[in-house]
């Protein structure tokens, strides 16, 4: 408890410094007197140092929730609205004011809002940006915002492998929320047309190549696609294939290991798909479009796409799924996850408490029922997986859920330049190797050097 309060004080100190510097610089810039003087902002008000343990539970509280699903016209927006409605019904004295944001702008919004002294109280943050967010933003680890007993009861029902994967230095900073892992989508009709059995899908990347070529030959359509060239520059699938080959981007000591043999093998295997013609040389956007049109046999991609793939397939082709393929025959596949977690940025104890109540609710059984059935993200609670087991969505998620046990933590480069390193990896190594036939070993080695310089 004491350490918690101390941490909070430091946090306040930090943000106050930050917000003072901004107007100071603006003053240097010779701006309006009004801007230079500034006003008293929220964070400068004395905050009762009571901590999260003694909240006033009955007082009505309003908290803000920044979500890239909220307000979107598709399933994500509707599902988020259902979650909010259910929460408001269960907790009438906590009002959650949602704020929509384009998925690409989440971190920009969080940073500018923080610099301006008014971050949202709860934010949905993608895992690929989480390390950076935790490092730079005044995030209160969700595990510390929760009373200890409530925390242990709450996480007891959550997937232990996911909870283990998102624990960093013994603390869970953000609550797993809309989670997905890669899975293999299959167009069963094209499989049958090529004389293949969709019930017996390819198990390794070599099998994928053979099946892809067979589909291409028999139907004239595209064979397979492994979505490592992610359009949003995320590297979760790159990490998944490398981890499945027994490697990693970053070693346990923080060193860059993406030029070691497992990584080279993994990208060589994926590049083998394109060079053989089993996989088209296009980016993920085009490949997903092709698959949803029914023009492609297999797509290895995120489960986040499941519901929209189901909708596209309906009446056009039979959609089935299979586990993420092994990169090396005999070595079990170890995909990593993508999606988002919920982080608390509230400073005031009452709002922290309310933020925890909100997070607790939307990641409870009731919450995950909505998340899975309406948006198609993984049911992280066994109870919900069992309860919804007969729904088409969970049936299709089954291969992915079975692989959750061997999920690999998403790794971030330990540096202020982590995002730049990821973009460098995707742009300078993965894309040229997979789409344009660049030499895997040589390219990875030079890109690894570049990234070492960047993060070192």
């Amino acid at each position, binding site marked *: 408890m004491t350490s918690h309060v101390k941490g909070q004080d430091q946090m306040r100190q930090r943000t106050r410094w930050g917000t003072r510097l901004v107007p100071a610089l603006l003053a240097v810039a010779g701006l309006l007197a*009004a801007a230079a003087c*500034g006003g008293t902002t929220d964070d400068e008000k004395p905050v009762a140092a009571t901590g999260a343990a003694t909240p006033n539970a009955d007082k009505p509280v309003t908290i803000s929730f920044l979500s890239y*699903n909220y307000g979107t*016209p598709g399933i994500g927006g509707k599902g988020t609205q259902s979650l909010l409605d259910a929460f408001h019904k269960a907790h009438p004295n906590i009002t959650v004011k949602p704020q929509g944001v*384009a998925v690409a702008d989440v971190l920009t919004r969080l940073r500018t809002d923080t610099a*301006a002294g008014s971050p949202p109280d709860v934010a949905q943050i993608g895992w690929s940006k989480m390390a950076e967010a935790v490092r730079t933003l005044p995030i209160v680890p969700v595990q510390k915002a929760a009373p200890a007993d409530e925390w242990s009861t709450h996480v007891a029902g959550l997937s232990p492998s996911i909870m283990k994967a998102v624990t960093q230095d013994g603390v869970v900073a953000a609550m797993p929320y809309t989670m997905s892992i890669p899975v293999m989508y299959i167009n069963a009709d094209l499989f049958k047309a090529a004389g293949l059995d969709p019930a017996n899908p390819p198990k390794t990347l070599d099998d994928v190549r053979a099946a892809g070529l067979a589909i291409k030959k028999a139907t004239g359509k595209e064979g397979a696609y492994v979505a490592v060239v992610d359009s949003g520059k995320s590297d979760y699938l790159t990490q998944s294939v490398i981890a499945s080959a027994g490697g990693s981007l970053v070693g346990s000591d923080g060193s860059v290991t993406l030029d070691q043999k497992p990584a080279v093998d993994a990208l060589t295997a994926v590049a083998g798909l394109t060079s053989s013609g089993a996989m088209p040389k296009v980016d993920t956007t085009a490949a997903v479009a092709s698959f949803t049109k029914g023009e492609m046999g297999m797509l290895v991609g995120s489960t986040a796409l499941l519901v*929209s793939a189901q909708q596209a397939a309906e009446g056009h082709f039979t959609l089935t799924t299979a586990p993420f393929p092994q990169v090396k025959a005999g070595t079990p596949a170890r995909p990593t996850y993508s999606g988002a977690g919920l982080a608390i940025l509230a400073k005031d104890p009452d709002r922290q408490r309310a933020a925890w109540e909100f997070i607790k609710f939307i990641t409870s059984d009731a919450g995950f029922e909505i998340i899975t059935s309406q948006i198609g993200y993984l049911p992280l609670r066994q109870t919900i997986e069992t309860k919804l087991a007969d729904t088409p969505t969970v049936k299709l998620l089954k291969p992915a859920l079975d692989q959750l046990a061997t999920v690999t933590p998403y790794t971030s480069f330990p540096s202020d330049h982590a995002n730049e390193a990821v973009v460098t990896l995707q742009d300078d190594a993965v894309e040229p190797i997979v789409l344009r036939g660049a030499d895997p070993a040589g390219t990875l080695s030079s890109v690894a050097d570049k990234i070492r310089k960047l993060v070192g």
Partner: protein
Amino acid sequence: MPPADRTAPAVTAADGASSGALATAIPLRRQPMPTRSMTENPTGGAAAVRGPAARRDRRWWRAARTAGRHGVLVAVVLAMLFPTLWALNTSFKPTSDVYDSSPLPIPATLANYRAAIDAFPIWQLLLNSFVTAAGVTVLHLLAGVLAGWSFVRYAHRGQRVVSALVLVALVVPPQALIIPDFLLVARLGWRDTFVGLIVPQLSTCSLAVLLLRQHILTVPATLLGAATLDGATDGEILRHVVLPLLRPALGAVAIVVFITTWNEFLWPALVAPSPEHTTVQMGLQLFQNQEGPEYGPLLAGAMLATIPIALIYALASRRITDAFLHSGLR
């Protein structure tokens, strides 16, 4: 170079027009003719003195040229319209056909439009966009006319510096201004207000200043001189002499500024993200989501968002007709 020689006097005269000599000289020399008949008979003067064969030849040549002209224009129009037509086409396609290459949306569906309208308060967003864009346009025109006029009208010591400041402001990348401007707006307490949305967008007013100054320069100096000698004050000259002549320029600049503001999205997304104030562009961004981007509704929403622009264009472009028709110069 005989042809050049023949037109040489005209060139000199026309060149003078921009500096003010011709505008007053021409009406003395020639009765103004209705524009229409003049253009429909462009070579009439020359053809009249030739024989009938030559005339027939000329007529054929003219028809061919008209056909060629329309051919070129139609080709350019098609090339320019292609993406818009494709977006229109796609906005009527069901989700599964969005990437389809069929040039017509068969089967067609209104589902995307329904989705776009249901997704968020699109009419409110359109209204917000309109208020923002109109506000910014008015401020730009006001600032532009005043500054443009003063640049042309008065010389003063700091002028070089001022003009350089206006020019350099144009080359400052907007991406670099967003964060400091945002922090300033936050300090001023202008977040989630129309003031916060509109006023900082004066940062791009250099364009209006430059364009309007350009047009004020074409106002014949003799006209200004005459008005001054008649005892008109500078304000009166601006209102009664310059502004009527600026009609086309004001129309064009208004359209440019309005559209640029209308299409801005990063600024509204940061400054005023709430549905009460944010713009339709911010709404369109939300269609590019993680769970399968909603391209059909996005394009449908974009189509709806062009309607107000088309109206503004229709209104403002009517002003872009011959300036002389609206001035006292005829």
